[in-house]
């Protein structure tokens, strides 16, 4: 009996060792490249650290600085405003454009596959190429967009070079509102909505036909069917896309760096959180402060995601009840 038990134990531990060996590359990578930087940046956020000399513990000084800048609307405060503006505008518009396009592309028309491919294509263009393309298109003087706006007798905004914000303050009636650099970034992100659109399309295909048939029998029109059947059934996917969209928007870096001369130009109107972290860390060599911003970014994203999850019970409908 004893011999049998010990051989089972041996076999068991050998199997565990083999399993550990197999996951070792991943585990080592995770520990060194994810967990260690994660923990180190938390520690550094309480330090002053310039890469060249050892980190020096300064308590909550970096967080106090963040709070002061947030209240004064400078530095971090400016970056938070820019990021919030960009995230809210781009996520809202992406949902509207994504759902709208997906519904239209689900209509059975000739060339449906071609239309789907056309609208999906922008999302496979690399970010750098897309940024360069949009810088050309939205060039205030020689860009195609302003060329057509002028031809139509509409005002030609300065896009990436403008410090104006179209959405805030909302003074469209004064005739002074204009699209500026953040609006151009929003436009660019909505153009790449194809990824989200494909998910909406898949979800549209999953909505049971019987629901539409029943609604039709009850005399519901197209709009009513969209409102009472399509939207509620799409809501879990919209929820997923909103969460992912917020995370992506808050972390936007490459396109922001490219259009803003790497410094948030013009006049810090494109100084997003990730660019602010980059400048603090690698231009000003304030690793401690940069780590504190990164942690605030993490906390804000966590809070935003938690708030979205919390709100989901009021507007997200799962077929067959909540998961």
């Amino acid at each position, binding site marked *: 009996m004893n011999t049998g038990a010990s051989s089972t134990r041996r076999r068991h531990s050998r199997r565990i060792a083999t399993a550990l060996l197999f996951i070792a590359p991943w585990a080592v990578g995770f520990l060194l490249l994810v967990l260690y930087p994660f923990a180190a940046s938390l520690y550094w956020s309480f330090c002053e650290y310039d890469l060249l000399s050892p980190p020096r513990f300064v308590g909550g000084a970096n967080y106090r600085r963040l709070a002061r800048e947030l209240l004064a609307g400078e530095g971090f405060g400016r970056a938070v405003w820019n990021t919030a503006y960009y995230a809210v505008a781009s996520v809202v518009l992406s949902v509207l454009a994504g759902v709208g396009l997906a519904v239209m592309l689900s209509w059975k028309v000739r060339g449906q596959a071609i239309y789907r491919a056309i609208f999906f294509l922008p999302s496979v263009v690399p970010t750098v190429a897309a940024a360069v393309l949009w810088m050309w298109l939205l060039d*205030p003087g020689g860009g195609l967009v302003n060329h057509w706006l002028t031809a139509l007798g509409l005002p030609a905004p*300065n896009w990436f070079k403008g410090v104006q914000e179209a959405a805030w303050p909302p003074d469209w009636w004064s005739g002074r509102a204009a699209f500026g650099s953040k609006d151009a970034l929003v436009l660019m992100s909505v153009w790449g909505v194809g990824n989200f659109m494909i998910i909406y399309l898949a979800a549209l295909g999953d909505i049971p036909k019987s629901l539409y048939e029943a609604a039709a029998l009850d005399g519901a029109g197209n709009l009513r069917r969209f409102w009472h059947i399509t939207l509620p059934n799409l809501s879990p996917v919209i929820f997923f896309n909103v969460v992912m969209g917020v995370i992506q928007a808050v972390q936007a870096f490459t396109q922001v760096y490219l259009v803003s001369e790497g410094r948030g*130009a013009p006049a810090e109107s494109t100084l997003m959180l990730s660019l602010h972290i980059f400048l603090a860390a690698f231009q000003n060599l304030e690793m401690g402060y940069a780590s504190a911003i990164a942690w605030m970014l993490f906390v804000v994203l966590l809070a935003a995601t938690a708030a979205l999850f919390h709100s989901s019970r009021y507007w997200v409908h799962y077929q067959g009840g909540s998961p």
Partner: protein
Amino acid sequence: MTIRNAATALVVLLATSLLFWPDSGDQEEAVPAGRKEVIFWHFWGGDDRRVVQDIVARFNRSQNDHYVRAIAMPGNNLDLKLFLAVTGGRPPDVINQDDPIVADWAARGALMPLEEIATRQECERLREWLFPAAVDLCEHQGRLYGLCNGLDIRALYYNNTMLKKYGLTPPRTIADLDRIAEEIPANDLPASARPGNSNGGRRIRFGYLPDARRLWAWAIVFGGRWTDDHGKVVLDDEANVRALQWMTSYSRKYGPRTVTAFRQGDQSLPGKSFPLLAGRYAIVMDGQWRTRDIAAAQKREREQGQPVTEYGVCPLPPPPGGRQRAGWVNGNFFLLPRGAANSEGAWEFMKFWSGFGGHEADAAQTCAEGGWIPVSKAVVDQPRFQAFLREQPLFREFVALAAEPFQKPTPVVPGAPFLYREVVSTAESAMYEDDPPAARVLLQRAAKNVDRHLERFNRKRSPAP
């Protein structure tokens, strides 16, 4: 064999062949026996890189003790690479830079002052030998932390043919410049059809437009300063405010959105060519490197049998009470990272390139080939460089300005990269926002930000409590 097996075999073959791929040419060349290697990092590319390779080759031929290996790397993250190399204990022996980082890096202990490698007499001789601007660029707390090897000077380029056409002459005062901006028409339509008149007409030209990045220069010209007598940064000096107010007056007059859009159009010219040559302005502020573009354009006109457009260069014109022949200077300089293996070799190479210590003729050749402004009169006076100036008459004005005492760099203080961005961003706010706060308020706000940044920097450097 199936297609799948064949594909796998091909991938394995390619991956294996990568392992045995020979090193690229620059890394294979061995250091000659008996000589010590000098690792030199720089960021020059294109035509300039060939000039750099030539200088390195000339230095290596002239040497029995040292051998320079030049490594070109992308400029945008050179700083970070250097810091990692310094922290890792294997920095290059010498690097070349052109950002305002000398004091910042020196205060962090990443750089070795020249006083530690050269004798006191040599350092004193060097200070006398260099143009004042070349000393200013590398001096921090009374010590030289780098050796300048080329200056970048800004002046006004003017299209003399255009000025003459409208009965104007090159500006000698700021009022002259304003008048030129006023009188050069926005396009070639009859006066009744120009912008500002009810029947429109697209603007294709400005007489002159200030550039937000050049507040650094105009503040000095207006009699301002960026540091006080104790080296403390001053942004809201009365003359700095006046300079920014004057720059902003253009945006207020033509509208910030019009000015921004027109400026952006300069960036969209094919090959980022010089907007002056495209006829978009009568006057543009730019550096000495544009003299080549002008010479090339005039050559093209001659070859095509067209009338040759006349261009000229003049110093920035001051307002009453301002400074003559003043402006903003930057340049390239060599820095010695602390902890390098062969700083002596690096020092020899730096002297060879800049021309100090009997290398003036070599430096004159380098500057003539690269189209660079020498850092000393002793190099300017060399026959080879004088011959170059005869070929490039417009260049002469830049070289003359390089010797002037009020060609001032961005203050050489710790935190200068932050200071630089803050000043440019402030000027952008003043010039491009629809309803910006007053210039004075903006500069005061920027001064507060900079003070706080420098205070944090200094606190870090002070010993722990």
